[in-house]
């Protein structure tokens, strides 16, 4: 799972001191990080930390109130998600933008269908679309026997991967994944993490939003931690351990007091308390 060391680390997207306020409410302030080609930038934070505001800015759904975005070193503002997409920034939202009753291949090309012929005889190039869907999914390591099955019959992880493969095929350079593992079990999460690593290995810059440090750490190259709309750190992988990450996420002091509280109620021998203590020590 370790990333292949890139010879030259090309920065695709740079986030420079970005902030977003809605009237008097500051949703986000002073966020900076970079997204490099062939690397995974993880954005970690609890509910309400500002993760969704952050990705909406990257995806072009919101414009930042302050700071700037640099794409290939040039300052950019996206007027719409379509504009961001046209510049190669694709976002895979939690609902995946798939139509459950439609076959996998129709979903893969939905909105960008291939056609042949012209005039009234312009028709879908079904054969080619099926072929491409099959090979693109194989490239991501998904072997679907039948791309004719409705996408609703695939597992959550598989559907996530189809959405990723679709973004990659349609020329994404930066792939933003909004909590792709949030609704998945352990095994399915592992499957998705593997595809994130594959997308990374194909040279994409990946922005992986999650609240789970155990999912972020194995694939991440850089970790941006958010808390209540502010950055509490932007670390390269060599500068941080999983324990530190977990502790920062939970807020080290808060975890300590939680351990003591549970100790009083459950007794010091409780397996849960022991586990928490171990985690605290690891963090320190």
């Amino acid at each position, binding site marked *: 799972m370790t990333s292949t060391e890139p010879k030259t680390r090309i920065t695709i997207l740079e986030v420079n001191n970005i902030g977003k306020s809605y009237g008097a409410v500051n949703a986000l302030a002073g966020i900076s990080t970079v997204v490099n080609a062939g690397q995974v930038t993880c954005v970690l934070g609890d509910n309400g930390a500002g993760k969704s505001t952050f990705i909406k800015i990257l995806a072009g759904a919101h414009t930042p109130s302050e700071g700037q975005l640099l794409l290939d070193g040039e300052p950019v503002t996206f007027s719409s998600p379509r504009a961001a997409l046209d510049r190669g920034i694709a976002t895979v939202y939690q609902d995946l933008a798939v*139509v459950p009753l*439609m076959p996998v291949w129709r979903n893969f090309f939905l909105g960008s269908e291939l056609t042949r012929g012209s005039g009234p005889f312009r028709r879908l190039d079904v054969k080619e679309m099926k072929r491409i869907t099959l090979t693109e999914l194989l490239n991501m390591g998904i072997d679907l026997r039948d791309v004719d099955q409705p996408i609703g019959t695939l597992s959550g992880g598989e559907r996530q991967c189809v959405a990723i493969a679709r973004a990659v095929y349609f020329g994404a350079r930066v792939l933003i994944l909004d909590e792709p593992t949030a609704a998945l079990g352990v095994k399915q999460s592992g499957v998705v993490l593997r595809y994130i690593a594959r997308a990374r290995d194909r040279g994409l810059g990946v922005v992986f939003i999650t609240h789970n440090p155990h999912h972020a750490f194995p694939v991440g190259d850089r970790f941006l931690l958010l808390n209540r709309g502010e950055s509490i750190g932007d670390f390269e992988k060599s500068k941080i351990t999983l324990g530190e990450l977990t502790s920062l996420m939970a807020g080290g002091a808060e975890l300590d007091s939680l351990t003591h509280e549970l100790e009083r109620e459950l007794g010091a021998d409780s397996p849960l308390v022991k586990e928490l203590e171990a985690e605290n020590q690891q963090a320190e």
Partner: protein
Amino acid sequence: MTTTDIMTIALRPRVERRPIRRVLARPETGAFVAALAVLVFFSIYTNTFLTLPGAGVWLESASTFGIMAVAVALLMIGGEFDLSAGVMTGFTALIVGILTTQFGLNIWVAAVISLIVALAIGALNGYVVMRTGLPSFIVTLGTFFVLAGADLAVTKLLTGQVSIQGMAKVPNYDSIQPLFGSSITIGGGVFYVSVVWWIVVTAIATWVLLRTRAGNWIFAVGGALNSSRQVGVPVMKTKIGLFMTTAGAAWLVGMISLFRTSTVQANTGVGQEFIYIICAVVGGCLLTGGYGSAVGAALGALIYGMVFQGITFAQWDTNWLRTVLGAMLLLAVFLNHWVRRRASGGAQ
């Protein structure tokens, strides 16, 4: 209901590799089986049903319902209803009737104006539904009543009657009539050109649905509106186009009924909007959108036509007509549902 429907279909495709199962899993298979059952029943029960004259009668009856059912099926796959579809068939015929008999307009010009007005009302239906976000059921119920009232009031105002007659005396009537109202006689059976229209409309609808981008978008907007929007499907254009298609089909049916009889009643088509929906559902369309087929809807209309005329052939008391129709249609829906479930891979 939505979840169950999705599950029923979602369970289906794993088995689609087996050819027989693949056929059984198609949305129109249930309607096909039901149509066959109805055909066999009336063929045995009466001795006129399965003759050329008999077939001419029930095919003619099924054809106009079939044209509408196919258009309504497309709309339902796209996730919407059109309750004004029935009254629109009378409305378009009345426009032609009034413009020619009362204002002396050229009949071809009147037919084109009627089509343009129909398409405009269809577009308005779609625009209002999309703009307001209100259910199409309510919006088109409104259009239905507005048109139904206008049909009667305007016809009465201009002609003093509730129907328009004497169309055959209008100049150039004979030049346009064959297009919509002609017939040929084969072995004593009269077959109308509307049956050809029905087949053509079904074929075009099937082609559009399965082999064009527009068809892809129709399934998408009916199956998951937000997802469609996110991947760049032109949602507004697709939905408005569907409402216009239904209105255009209603115009075709209006012309067919006008030029077959050379008269038009002011209340033509009222009450038929639900029959179109029933035909589409019998043909495998989900009420919730995103699933169905044009061929299925055409078969649904065929069932309707056969039952409708079969009852007359069987010489049952026609007061029971609607009751029997309702029961038959329910049966067909159950059968359709059962076949679909069987097809979903050995479901009980």
